[in-house]
């Protein structure tokens, strides 16, 4: 059991959800789309995120207008854009925010710097408070594989590729050759097991 530090409604097995809305300053309207565009296209920028291996899925979205569905919904014009952030991750909420503060300090500044009230990412205390103030609890959270953690999934996928040749050839190999190939597989794939 590793999922901790947040309301049980945000948790499904080992998976934790976090949902944050923040109000964006005028210049974020121009800056954020560029940031999103660039981040998606420059792998180097997400390398640390990948290495941290906490996150299954995450997204940042901008809400610029509220679609009008007819009365009794009032037609609403938003004064500011609002940024929606969601993440699906493993480990504790506290450790998650700590890791982002310490390791992705400039990334946090880039994504939240244009939001009202964003204190710096460090020290961690005020940043955690900011996230808590702007976080909304999920009413229902679902994961298709709640007990699996990210590194397990990545390992499982890698293992599948490594195991495939041996599965294909096992029957027709000579036992000694098989044993050697099996040993090579284990050695090669031990970080996946």
């Amino acid at each position, binding site marked *: 059991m590793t999922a901790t530090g947040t309301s049980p409604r945000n948790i*499904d097995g080992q*998976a934790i*959800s976090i949902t944050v*809305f*923040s*109000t964006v300053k005028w210049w974020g309207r121009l800056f*954020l*789309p560029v940031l*999103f565009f660039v981040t*998606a296209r420059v792998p180097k920028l*997400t390398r640390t*995120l990948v290495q941290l291996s906490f*996150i*299954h*899925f*995450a*997204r*940042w*979205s*901008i809400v610029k207008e*509220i*679609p009008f*569905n*007819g009365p*009794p*919904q*009032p037609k609403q014009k*938003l*004064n*500011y854009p609002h940024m*929606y952030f969601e993440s*699906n991750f493993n480990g504790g909420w506290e450790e998650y925010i700590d890791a982002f503060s310490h390791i992705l300090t400039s990334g946090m500044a880039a994504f939240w710097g244009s939001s*009202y*009230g964003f204190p710096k990412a460090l020290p961690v205390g005020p940043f955690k408070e900011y996230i808590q103030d*702007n976080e*909304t*609890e*999920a*009413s*229902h*959270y*679902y*994961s*298709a*594989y709640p007990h*699996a953690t990210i590194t*397990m*999934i*990545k390992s*499982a*996928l890698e*293992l*599948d590729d490594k*195991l495939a040749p041996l599965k294909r050839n*096992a029957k027709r190999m000579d*036992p000694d050759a*098989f*044993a050697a190939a099996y040993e090579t597989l284990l050695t090669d794939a031990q970080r*996946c*097991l």
Partner: protein
Amino acid sequence: MPVRSANRSGQAYGFLAMTPIKPGEIEALQQYLESLRERGPSPLSRVSRTHMARWVIVPKFHRKPAYRQRKDDMLEIPSLIFSSNLDGDLDSYLDELCEALAPEAPEIWGRCIGCPPEAKGAALKEYLKFNQVDCGFFYAAYGQATVSKVRRTLEQRDQLVAFAVRSQGLSPEELQGAFVEEFAAS
């Protein structure tokens, strides 16, 4: 025009619909969503291409005086967020969702303004798409893998670990026989 490719990472897609809640219905909606866990497996488990999804009620946009935000920007009407991280094509996914969730949808989107009266099928799908919010940046750690592939390979990993532990010390013939039986019998 919304940039739909920003919703993709690998074959995974990030869908979000933000729908206004009918006045007076917010508490009932919240209670209903919170009760889903108690009734058994999540209804979303019937939508097999869903990796992870959530329903979140957003009553308002938060604002503190210390933020020095000049104007108010309260959400005039509370919203229901439905966010899903799914496999493949959005249209066919929404078709599956609107069909599989037919029992629950009237209690969920049925409590939102503009939802078609029967809360199902093509009409529900159009309603959700009308209220879609595109991703600005979508990150998927294993965007190339579908739900079924994730589940299959996780199970296989468990199987191989258990096999590796118990087959230490077997002779090559025994090892091969056991392996074939476990992984290659077909």
